């Protein structure tokens, strides 16, 4: 073993000429490595990555604005229905164009997609009378609270990761989608007629189940396009929320700005406290071929 100048060996099988509490000054903690895998974050790339969060928040607030309008009968349900259908086809086309580089689609998958979307559409149409009376016995206050919690859960657990070649479904992303759909179903049950319920739930399925897939694909596009898209979404949701309630709109704007600009700054500042310790005591990771 390594033999030191004063005759101390880091071995246990030989009794050393030193007392047992002798600590050799050079070799003690010599194999300690601090922060070996440290990749420092920089501010602007982080801001770009945070755009995913901002987009998600924008969709939530857009949905809420649409819901309030539907409830107050300022928006016709049929208009919303047409918007949903058109945006579905538009979004699907954009998804196809963007995933042109790795075409996993073939005729079979495409027909499957059409079939399943048609199935969902018709099922929702059939279920909407049931959904309307789902929470008839609950008072509105508990509905607002429940819906807020579920949307919070959705925002917390959503999949904000950047584009990976193969998209793995994580448990948290499935949970977040479930939370959003539950929340929208629970909100939809407050609406006055069946068509409105159907329109809202269809819109929700599009926004929270299908839009995240498109958002993932959008991260491949050049940076300017992403920033522009994020900006459009935010302005749209802000504009939709403003006529309803000024305070809520400003709170939303505040949250958006914090999430996009302040939070990355805090993360960059907190890096100086990073203290990862690695040494021979760590559980080794076996490398197999």
């Amino acid at each position: 073993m390594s033999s030191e100048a004063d005759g101390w060996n880091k071995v246990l099988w030989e009794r050393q000429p030193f007392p047992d509490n002798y600590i050799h000054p050079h070799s003690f903690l010599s194999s300690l490595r601090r922060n070996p895998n440290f990749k420092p974050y920089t501010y602007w790339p982080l801001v770009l990555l945070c755009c995913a969060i901002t987009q998600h928040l924008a969709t939530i607030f857009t949905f809420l604005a649409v819901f309030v309008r539907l409830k107050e009968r300022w928006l016709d349900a049929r208009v919303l229905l047409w918007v949903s259908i058109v945006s579905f086809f538009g979004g699907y086309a954009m998804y196809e164009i963007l995933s042109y580089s790795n075409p996993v689609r073939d005729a079979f998958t495409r027909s499957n997609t059409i079939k399943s979307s048609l199935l969902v559409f018709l099922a929702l149409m059939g279920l909407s009378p049931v959904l309307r009376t789902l929470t008839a016995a609950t008072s509105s206050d508990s509905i607002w609270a429940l819906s807020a919690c579920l949307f919070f859960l959705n925002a917390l657990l959503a999949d904000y990761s950047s584009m990976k070649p193969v998209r793995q479904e994580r448990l948290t992303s499935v949970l977040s989608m479930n939370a959003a759909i539950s929340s929208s179903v629970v909100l939809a049950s407050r609406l006055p007629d069946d068509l409105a319920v159907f329109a809202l739930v269809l819109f929700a399925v599009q926004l929270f189940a299908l839009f995240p897939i498109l958002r993932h694909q959008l991260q491949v596009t050049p940076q300017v396009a992403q920033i522009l898209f994020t900006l459009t979404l935010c302005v749209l949701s802000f504009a939709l929320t403003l006529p309803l309630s000024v305070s809520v709109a400003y709170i939303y704007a505040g949250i958006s700005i914090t999430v996009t600009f302040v939070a990355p700054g805090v993360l960059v500042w907190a890096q100086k406290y990073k203290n990862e310790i690695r040494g021979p005591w760590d559980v080794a990771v076996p490398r197999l071929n």
Partner: protein
Amino acid sequence: MISDFFHPNVGGVENHIFMLSANLIRRGHKVIVITHSHPPDRVGVRWLLPGLKVYYIPFPAIASSATLPNYFTFLPYFRVIIAREHIHLIHAHASLSSLGQEAILHAHHLGVRTVFTDHSLFGFEDAASILTNKLLAAALKNVDAVICVSHTGRENTVLRGQLFEMSEDSSALVVRPNVYVIPNALVAEQFTPATKPVSSETIYIVVLSRLAYRKGIDLLVATAPRICSAFPNVNFIVGGDGPKLNDLLQVRERHLLQDRIELLGPVRHRDVRDVLVRGSIFLNTSLTESFGIAILEAACAGLYVVSTRVGGVPEILPHDMISFAKPEEDDLIRALSEAVAIVSKGQHDPLEAHQKVKNFYNWGEVAERTEIVYDAVVKSEQKDLWTRMQRTMELGPFAGPIYTIILVVDCLFFLFLEWLMPRHDLDFVQMHWEHHNFRHVVQ
């Protein structure tokens, strides 16, 4: 000795406590062990063979023989036992043992000194480690000496428990002077090599471990077929049980190695030697190991050892008795090929290896070195309550006040117990097992 892990459980820590106690008794000290009870009826006071009194406290055990962490429920039992047995020093074992850590907290009320031995290595990253490390740092703030079983173990314990003090000239943080390294040992007579030499045509590689991820069974599964195809005269004997048994069975079937890899299932401790002497090479693929007593047992039985270079393993045997490999498949193949070559050429002598290990590690020496630690501890000054409170406050802005409050409440509880069960009413122990009395009576 205070620990959650003792007889009738079998394991490294349990064996260590028993052998150390037996050797300290042989050197003339009085040793008792305090541990928790085992259902259905192992509760109360029992005696183990060389005059070792064991107190089984009626606490229920949760996962793997560890009791629930609490700070005060042990105090009444502790006070009564320590007072009636006239104990001067307590020795706590294992960082996961809550009885041990509590005992370190309570010991100063009775003027008793404390020593702590740490047997395992922990990481720093996952949630369980962070919590255990914080608890350990709190317990070790006021302990009188810490013993670790290897140099790597000492580095790990010092970092985890933050055993640093301001140096005399207040310039830098230095490690405390009371952290010792005393290795484990083994009873060499239980692991004698085979009396007649093993056949030299077939070379048997023995693997004896719990079949879990932590023991690197994935590496074994990956390398066994390659070794079997590269060396037609090499067979494997695998003993032990665990979650990865299925992987081994599958690889055996996939490569049709049923007659080359023998699976023995769980092996009892008393049969370990018989399994070991069937082979010439011992393979250890653990991903982390603070000391590696299984490696020593194999080396003592005359086998050549191949092991992954992790934890404290590089420190336990000289280079001519062990081959190291990185925890990678290719490097392990290289090390095993080297070992097979050495054994085929007959360059490894089992009887000589046994003699060497017998001289390197024996419990008498461990007991002697531990006695030196006890001596130093007893001669040092006991810290008074105010110093203890100040040291506990240094733990941090949140943990410091919390633990100081626990310390103060502990003192108050102790005063309450002094009033409730006064010392003069306690049933003091007048007689203890004295070996020369027994010999006198028997002769």
